[in-house]
């Protein structure tokens, strides 16, 4: 049982303010991912929860107990560092046993716990090795082992997979998800990789410039991003944006033209008026290639065949970073121009300050 509650957390380093009024509730056994670009404050927030950093103001509440001023060891947390922070002079066994030695656990119990952790993480035959003799993935597992033996209430992960190569990262993602299912504890995970966030999280917290942009389930963020930033950050490849000022409001709906296509968007129009500049967001996977002349023309620069699908990169109506995902049997070649069509109900609209015009679903 462990809930985590953050109340009005502010943090500044000297003059630089890095976190503003962070409020967040994390439920028991939830896998929460803090995601955002570098410098957004996500690691600082994690360190404040761990107790390695003190918040300038605000409180950290774990299991209904205010631990804002408690040292890390009294918070019931365990942390896995980006660099793994393994003790190079100690064997794998001693690395995993380290927290237990600090806590002066008796030898028999210590051995049992270390062996059990090693069993879970498939490190039984590596216990006598030094960290330097292990592969990246194994070191990662030792670091996790060291956090498991303490039976923490909350696991904190600080970009644990960023030092691994792509293939290993995929494997470790699955292992971490399994670990979460086995241990059934609350986990807070920091990453800048939105794929990690999407695949592992029960709840994603998107941070930007020290502020929480949006909190929600992965699919919620994917389908209903509340800001242009979240829309662009979540989803791979990134959402495409097209600017338009050709806007009209009729019957409480937003009407606009993108190229030859007339869009009728059922969105909340309270924050805009006719003629305002808005951004229309379309996910690459929601685009289709039209057989007719209808649609918006895209001049294709690069064609990526990734097996299941084909990704087209090119420019559309002045946006040179446009991207579309088309079926793998496509024969489109670089240099060609294709007409793209899409369903207006799949579109997202954002006002000039980057706020989403939420769908009204009439």
């Amino acid at each position, binding site marked *: 049982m462990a809930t985590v509650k953050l109340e009005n957390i502010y943090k500044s380093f000297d003059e630089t303010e890095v976190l503003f009024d962070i409020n967040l509730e994390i439920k028991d056994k939830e896998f929460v991912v803090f995601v955002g670009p570098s410098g957004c404050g996500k690691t600082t927030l994690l360190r404040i929860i761990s107790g390695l950093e003190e918040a300038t103001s605000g409180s950290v509440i774990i299991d209904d107990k205010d631990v804002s001023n408690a*040292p890390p*060891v009294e918070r019931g947390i365990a942390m896995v560092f980006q660099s793994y922070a393994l003790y190079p002079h100690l064997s794998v066994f001693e690395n995993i046993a380290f927290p237990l030695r600090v806590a002066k656990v008796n030898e028999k119990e210590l051995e049992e716990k270390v062996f059990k952790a090693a069993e879970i993480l498939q490190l039984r035959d590596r216990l006598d090795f*030094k960290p330097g003799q292990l592969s990246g993935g194994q070191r990662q597992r030792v670091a996790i082992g060291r956090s498991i033996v303490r039976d923490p209430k909350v696991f904190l992960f600080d970009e644990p997979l960023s030092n691994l190569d792509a293939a290993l990262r995929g494997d470790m993602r699955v292992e971490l998800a399994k670990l979460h299912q086995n241990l059934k504890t609350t986990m807070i995970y920091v990453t800048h990789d939105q794929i990690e966030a999407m695949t592992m999280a029960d709840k994603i917290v998107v941070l930007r410039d020290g502020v929480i942009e949006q909190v929600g389930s992965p699919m919620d963020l994917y389908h209903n991003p509340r800001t242009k930033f979240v829309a662009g950050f979540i989803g791979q490849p990134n959402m495409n944006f097209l600017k338009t000022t050709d806007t009209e409001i009729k019957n409480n709906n937003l009407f606009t033209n993108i190229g030859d296509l007339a869009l009728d968007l059922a969105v909340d129009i309270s924050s805009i008026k006719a003629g305002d500049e808005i951004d229309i967001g379309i996910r690459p996977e929601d685009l289709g290639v039209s057989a007719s002349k209808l649609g918006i023309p895209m001049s294709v620069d690069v064609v990526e065949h990734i097996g299941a699908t084909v990704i087209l990169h090119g420019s559309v109506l002045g946006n040179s970073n446009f991207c579309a995902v088309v079926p793998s049997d496509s024969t489109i070649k670089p240099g060609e121009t294709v007409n793209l069509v899409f369903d207006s109900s799949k579109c997202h609209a954002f006002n000039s300050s980057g706020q989403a015009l939420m769908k009204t679903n009439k």
Partner: protein
Amino acid sequence: MSSLIQMLKPKTKSQTTTMFAWALIAPAAMVMFWIVLWPLYETFRLSFTNSNLGTLMGGADFIGWENYEKAIGGRKFPSIVTRTFYWMFLSVGFKMILGLIGATLLASNIRGRGLMRALVMPPWIVPIAIGCFGWLWLYNGHFGLLSNFAEMVGITNGPFSFLAYKQSAFYSAVVTDVWIGTPMVTLFFLAAMQGVPKDLYEAAYVDGASRWYRFRRITLPQIMPTIVSMALLSAIWTFNSFEIIWILTEGGPRGATTTLIIDTFKTAIFSYKFGAGATRAVLVVLILGVFSVIYLTVLGRLSKKYGYGGVQK
């Protein structure tokens, strides 16, 4: 005819490269030969002769092991060797302990840390002779600061000349040697401590490890290679430390501060017994050689114990 063809044949590329390499190191090799190898050989040769002031113009005789028999069999020799090792262990021990304490303090995150670090340097930066003269004044019985202070607070009831008594002279020399030798040890330890990744400490802190626990199980093992190598270097320097003792006491009073190197100098230069002096120099080399071998064996064991088991990324 065939030799002519051989001569006309162009040299292979690797031959010229080798020649060029030899040419490049030749000047350095020559200097090394004249200032290291030749004197070493000469010392070794002299140690088997009765060379002295009288035989300076030639005529020193080869006398076999006589010098060695006299030196090792001499009445004072065992006590000089014991004293030298005592001097070395005492001084190096203090340098290591003070260096470790100093480095730990300087590594801590306190205000004015930069200034503190700079203030550690002077004993090491100031020329040894000048530092020693400063200490001579401090130790002086009549106008020395230490004696005056001791009298003022009632430790002594009159002027006390620190360098005039056997015991106090020896320990005073140790204090000065430690004063001069500690800054470098401190800075090396500090550099090593700063090389320890910060997240190791954070990880241990999250696990609830106390400051002392972190120092014992992270800092010490992490800087152990530096401690070990500094201890060896410091031991050799201290063993051979000449100018500090010479300026303070000239090996006196009544031989109380005469270490092997002082004895060597006194025999060879003051008594003009070049052969007998050379013998002592050779003995110093042998003793330090044995010491180094023992030491390197211990070092090997230590690095196995604290080793990283390979290179960590």
